[in-house]
């Protein structure tokens, strides 16, 4: 069952402690995701979609249950192995862009690629090529503060794609953009990913954006509302 699947999430829960209270952000998620899929996680804020994305992206560990990625239970892996998976298999796009403010556009792309150990000239060439693909080759030496929101998110997409990941995880990538720019950014993300046969998991509360996905999964109160495709 797990052989062909990219992700197999089994009864995953995640709870946080806030002082004395325990908040159950995710209550028993079962979800399977295939290679090359473009999946939208849709739901109101607080429904747990970002928490699920973080479990899928190995940014967090489930309180209980398992998250299998390519057949490996992420919870059994150490921090360094998770870091390596994030480096080579995942690419993140955040709502707030999360560019390193002191690095220019090119260096922000390089920041993801550098730990893979590519030689210096290749690092630069590949990063520049990616910036060109997102249409920002003329902005390579601009700091994030000198770029518009849409431009920053495009740099973030170039960064996410730089290590040729298997999965691109985007958390509300349009949340800080106006709708036109948002649509452009999502179109760019999906088209580039489809070209490369990357799997895309897109968290959004925007139905219009969700329509661009192959499949949408609705979430509410930490649970999936619709049956998953298995």
């Amino acid at each position, binding site marked *: 069952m797990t052989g062909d699947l990219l992700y197999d999430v089994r009864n995953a829960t995640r709870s946080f402690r806030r002082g004395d209270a325990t908040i159950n952000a995710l209550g028993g998620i079962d979800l399977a995701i295939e290679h090359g899929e473009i999946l939208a996680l849709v739901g109101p804020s607080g429904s747990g979609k970002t928490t699920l994305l973080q479990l899928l992206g190995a940014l967090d560990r489930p309180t209980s249950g398992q998250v299998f990625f390519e057949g490996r239970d992420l919870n059994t892996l150490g921090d360094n192995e998770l870091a390596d998976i994030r480096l080579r298999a995942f690419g993140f796009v955040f709502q707030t862009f999360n560019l390193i403010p002191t690095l220019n556009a090119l*260096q922000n792309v390089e*920041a993801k690629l550098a730990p893979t150990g590519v030689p210096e000239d290749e690092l630069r060439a590949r990063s520049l090529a990616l910036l060109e693909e997102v249409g920002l080759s003329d902005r390579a030496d601009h700091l994030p503060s000198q770029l518009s929101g849409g431009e920053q998110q495009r740099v973030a997409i170039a960064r996410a794609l730089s290590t040729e990941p298997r999965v691109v995880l985007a958390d509300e990538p349009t949340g800080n953009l106006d709708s036109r720019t948002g649509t452009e950014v999502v179109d760019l993300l999906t088209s580039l990913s489809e070209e490369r046969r990357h799997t895309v998991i897109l968290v959004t509360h925007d139905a219009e954006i969700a329509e661009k996905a192959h499949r949408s999964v609705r979430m509410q109160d930490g649970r999936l509302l619709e049956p998953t495709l298995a």
Partner: protein
Amino acid sequence: MFYFRYLRSELVGRRTRTVLTLVGLALGVALVITISGLARGLDRAQKTALDPLSTIGTDLTVTLSPQQDTGGFGRGGGGEVVQANQSAVTDLSKLGKPGTQFVHDFFLPGTQLTFPQKQTAKIASLPGVASISNGLVLSAVHQEGVVPKIVAKIKAGGQQLDIRRQIKPPTAAEAAAIQACFQKLGVGVGGGPQSGTQPGEQQGFGGGRGAGGGGFFSSPAARKCLPARMREFRARITTPQQTLKQVVSPPQTNIKSSSYTIGGIDPAQQSIGLVTPSQLSRGRFFSKSGGHEALVSAAYAKRKSLKLGSTLDLNGTRFKIIGLVSPPLGGQTADVYIPLAQLQKLASQKGLANVVLVRATSSSDVAKVQKEIEQALGSGAQVASAKQVAASINGSLVDAANLSHDLGLVLAIIAAVAAFLVAALLTLSSIGKRVREIGTLKALGWSQRLVIRQVLGECLATGIAGGLVGVVLGVLAAAAIGAFGPSLSASSTTGAAGANDVLGLGQALARTASTSVSLTAPLSLSLLLFGFALALAGGLIAGGAGALRAARLRPADALRQME
């Protein structure tokens, strides 16, 4: 290399934070360096100034103070002090002829009585005594100026005496006789000059030619004819007796007095003495034979603008200054040193000394030797050990040294801790503000090791820069202290003890020796390295701890942190 570019971008991009951290580190390092340097400077000053005897090869000093009942060693008694100090009288009449320039130096033994040098052989023969040296330390008063001329001006004479007396006119009988006499001589009475007679001699009675009226009466005719009563006027006048009194203002004079101390040293002994070659700061020491040469304390030379090669004229004997010395404190110091024999001659103290410096054969014998000397010499002798001498020294240097002793270490530790804390807090706060960035890096796939390496690299760079700036600041501060720092003084009074009770002369005659040490903050390479390492360690430890904490957070938690 990407990581270096990142490091540089991070340091340059967050200029304000970098500079703030750097300045904080630098100030801390400079503080540590300066305070430690100061403590060392005080220590050094303390060693040279406050442990004076050891630098002159001496364990004990022996002096003789006047007492009511003195034993066999000295001559003793309060009267001796007076007698010994009598020569302080300035006798103007003996200085030279009025109006001539004079220079004179008076040498006074103060309250340390002198004793014949041969008596000190007694000390040398005591067991446990390695060597002794005789010294003569005198208070000197130097006077120079012009011998005043005292001239009094008294005006006398010029009185006018007016005498008026009525001469009784001739009686009728006298008039007739005068008439007859004149007629007989052929002189007219009341007429002008008569021709035929001797002109100019015979004149009328009332003739105008005789100025003062001497003419007629002195004429031969008048001498003959006038009655004896009218021929001569005699009176005795006594002018009134008076006493002239005039206060004579003291004459203007320019006699300058200045006092200094002068010490006589046995030049044959160079390892023990009031000063030894180790106190020499410039020039050379006395030759063994000791000629007309002088050593001058550096402080006195500065005050009097004396240089190597200048000459001192002491009552007509010229001494060439061959060296500058920094005499140790401890009472037996002087401004000027000359060979003992020369001073004895100048001060008319032939064969006399007033201090004996004693070295024991071993330092453990000092207490024993001190007792022996006290017993051998009787109650008038004062035997002081190096420790006692050190204890008698006071002044700001002592205060500062005590302060440095008590507080220097504490201050240095406080400064070090402060520097360390500043480095740590600044680094921690700068990392605290970057937790989200660290979370992003981890989300991108950076390993914990890589994140920590990056942050530590920044701390290292800031630490090195801050440390270097701090070292430079510290060196500058130390140089500034050396250049503008306050001088500390240490002083020690001799001769006052014991004499106070006798005559109350003690205070007046006691000699106070003082030395001033300008405060410096000597630095050493190890101190600079220590300050530098401190900054580095502070930055690295705090950076390491902060980075570890942030890097160990789950990326999800780190990303959740608000910036």
